[in-house]
């Protein structure tokens, strides 16, 4: 239904750069997630799209119309967006119906139509029977649905969500992921979703924007950013990963301290960082790339979560639950790497990071 264009958008608070020169286009009907650690600038980015912050430089366009630039600024109330706030921001002096009806009242929609639309949207978020309740009589999850209904009721071109699930308990959080995704798919609207939870980003998004310290690290589908992270930060922030240092030469990678090599068909040569996901390490005596000593193992139900040391490297391996208690502690086992990612060596040592 609409296209959001970011054109060299930069935001500074005083001297600190919060968003650094981001350009991209959110396409029609896309579910976009801005993902990054807290303080990375993702919320500021969202607030600039909403119109609560002015970019220091650069331009933002919605459907080709400039909403923020050096000489134009459209205030939030004129942008026809829907937004769900992290604190929900459900007005405590209005009941559920009045909260949801508010955007329509502002737009001077006739009363009968307001009633019809509010009832419809309340039904969509499963709150029909709560229309007369005051917010203080609702649970956190219900308040969150009120906020969602209010954001959707005026049929906005774009729905902005600022960590909407972070205050909910784990079970509800997981259910709401699917409900939000389903509503988005049904209405076909654009969603810009801010989160620091990579699980949410993976399950809901069409494209994920990974941001760190105001700098866009990678844009891609969930599969792309997981399987083909463009740098160590993305590999580390999205999913779990082990980092090893090594040298790439003649289609082989020699890992530091490890007796054994990996076959590599990529183009990077010289000193490299090798990222290995814990689930891409397998136990195999016959195809073993190298051998490691089992330090500890934890049974999680569906997997066996192991710590292994190999030549001074500590590795995490997540493997089949059936292997639990198969080996004794400190036993040396053969390890096979099914997949790995190679980066040119960076100055910082990522090996210490165990996630």
């Amino acid at each position, binding site marked *: 239904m609409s296209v959001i264009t970011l054109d060299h958008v930069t935001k500074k608070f005083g001297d600190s750069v919060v968003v650094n020169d981001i350009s991209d286009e959110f396409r029609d009907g896309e579910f976009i997630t801005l993902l990054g650690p807290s303080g990375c600038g993702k919320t500021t980015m969202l607030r600039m799209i*909403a*119109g*609560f912050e002015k970019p220091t430089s650069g331009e933002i366009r919605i459907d080709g119309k400039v909403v923020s630039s050096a000489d134009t600024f459209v*205030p*939030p*109330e*004129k*942008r*026809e*967006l*829907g*937004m769900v*706030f*992290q*604190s929900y*921001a*459900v*007005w*405590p*002096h209005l009941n559920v119906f009045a909260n949801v009806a*508010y*955007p329509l009242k*502002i*737009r001077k929609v006739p009363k009968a139509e307001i009633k019809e639309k509010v009832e419809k949207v309340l039904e969509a978020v499963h709150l029909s029977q709560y229309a007369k309740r005051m917010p203080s009589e609702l649970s956190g999850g219900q308040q969150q649905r009120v*906020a969602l209904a*209010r*954001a959707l009721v*005026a049929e906005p071109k774009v729905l*902005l969500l600022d960590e909407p699930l972070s205050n909910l308990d784990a079970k509800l959080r997981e259910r709401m992921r699917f409900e939000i995704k389903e509503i988005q798919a049904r209405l076909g609207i654009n969603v810009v979703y801010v989160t620091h939870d990579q699980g949410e980003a993976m399950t809901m998004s069409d494209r994920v924007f990974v941001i760190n310290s105001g700098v866009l690290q990678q844009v891609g589908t969930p599969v792309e950013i997981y399987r083909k992270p463009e740098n160590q930060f993305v590999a580390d922030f999205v999913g779990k990963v082990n980092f090893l240092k090594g040298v790439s030469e003649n289609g082989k990678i020699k890992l530091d301290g490890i007796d054994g090599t990996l076959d590599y068909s990529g183009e990077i040569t010289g000193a490299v960082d090798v990222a290995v996901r814990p689930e891409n390490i397998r136990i195999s005596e016959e195809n073993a790339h190298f051998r490691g000593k089992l330090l500890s193992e934890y049974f999680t139900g569906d997997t066996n979560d192991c710590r292994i040391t190999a030549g001074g490297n500590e590795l995490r391996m997540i493997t089949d639950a059936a292997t639990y208690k198969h080996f004794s502690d400190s036993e040396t086992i053969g390890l096979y790497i099914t997949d790995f990612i190679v980066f040119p060596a960076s100055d910082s040592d990522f090996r210490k990071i165990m996630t």
Partner: protein
Amino acid sequence: MENKKKFYFDVKWLFIIAIVGFLLVFQVFPLVYLLIRAFFAEGSFSLDAFTRIYSTSMNWSCVLNTLITASLSMVFGVLIAFPLAFLVGRTNLYGRKLFRTLFLMTYMVPPYVGAMAWLRLLNPKVGTLNVFLESIFGLSEAPFDIYSIGGLVWVLTTFYYPYAFITLSRAMENMDPSLEEASRISGASPVKMLFTVTLPLMLPSIASSALLVFVAAASCYGIPSIIGAPAKIYTITTRIVDYVYVGSAEGLTDATVLAVFLMVLALVILFISNFVIGKRDYITISGKSVRPNTVDLGKWRIPLTILTGLFAVVVIVIPFASVFATSFTVNMGKSVFEEGNFTIKYWETIFSRNSIVKSAGNSLISSVWAASLGMIVCIIMAYLLKRTNVRGRSIPDFLITVGSGTPSVVIALSLIMTMSGRFGINIYNTIWIMVIAYMIKYMLMGMRSVVSALSRVSPSLEEAAQVSGAGWLRRLKDVVFPLIGPSVVAGWFLIFMPCFYELTMSNMLYSDKTKSLGVDLFLYQTYHSQQTAAALAGAILILVAVLNIVLSKLTKGKFSI
């Protein structure tokens, strides 16, 4: 287990009983006695006394004057405080910090100082400001007359709007900014947002701040006694004090009835704002740090800053400056800047005249006692209230709140009636009757300070020390006191300061030997020498300012007043 608990005697009860006992004897009993006396003046139930209030025009007019001046001050106070709180708290006005300090300063200045200043500025014949305006605009007579209902309302308003300012600022700053943003993103313009979201959310705070100003203005004695008396405008408070001075039985009965009227008015309002409005208060402090968004004033930024600055100059700078100017003036009919009209002899007087030094000493002793005893009560009560679930722990808190909400004249009158030997306790004419009156009136300030400090200290901090093996006293010493210490000191000063220059209760309770600083100042202002009074007031202003700075440093800005 259940049975054992029943017989378990909690030591904490001893403290509660001691404190409640103290409050029952010195606060509840005297107030209840006033009530009884008002209805049973001649031994049997009668409303005669009340009918007399309505039938004698002298009494009736003072009730009317009180209601009129308090209502008008309330309306004007809120009308002034709301925009100020908004400008200072939520916009990019220049000099917001300075303005905040200025507006809050009035809060700790004794009201009679304001009355003195405005008397000097707006006297219809020689008022400095009147004379100035006359010469500028070529007027044939003074534009303002302080000796009027309008003058009284003006001074009351300029002194009590800070009460509303504090409440409203706090509410505005604690509001979750996304509540307003949600309105903007829903399509509301800033003005529409103000009327549909901000104002409705603020309504409980506006109402309670208005009531606060009303009660403060209605209970005030210093301002109406200095301004109203020469103008023959009497209020309930000045009338009560007059009756007490006369001392006849009928006079005391009339005073009692007027006091009961004022007390009921104040306590009903206290109840409404605490329990009715308080329940509807939407402004809750969330655990998250709330950063209210700042409204950009755009092209209005400079004009509004100038306007706010003008207001501060008129309401704060000019009156305080006039007090200091007066204290250096030889002939009150001429400007202090005229040749030979400048002197420092009044400042020498206040530090050398025996009677004044003696009064200052009396005030120092009684307010140190009131603050120290008061803080002991406050610390124990705050601890029981916040850290235990002993039953009845909130009773003293309730009584302390009621005591502070009771008008000063009423507290003093009730103590005069009950503590002069009639019921086995005679502390009349001693310093102790003043200490007790001060404690009842001002303990709440200390209580608030300690309670809020304790609320900020998470119980888990103490539990962590407990788990580490620290006993009760050790925990207090190692964890609790270092964290709440500054607030305890702040609380002590918050009780000490208003007691030190207290006028209303002291004026009714003093004897020759226990004359306090406030009383002395008042007597100089009314009968002897306005310059001496001004010098005393100036000294008090400096003391307040210095203590305020110390407090602010001590608590890192949390508890300056």
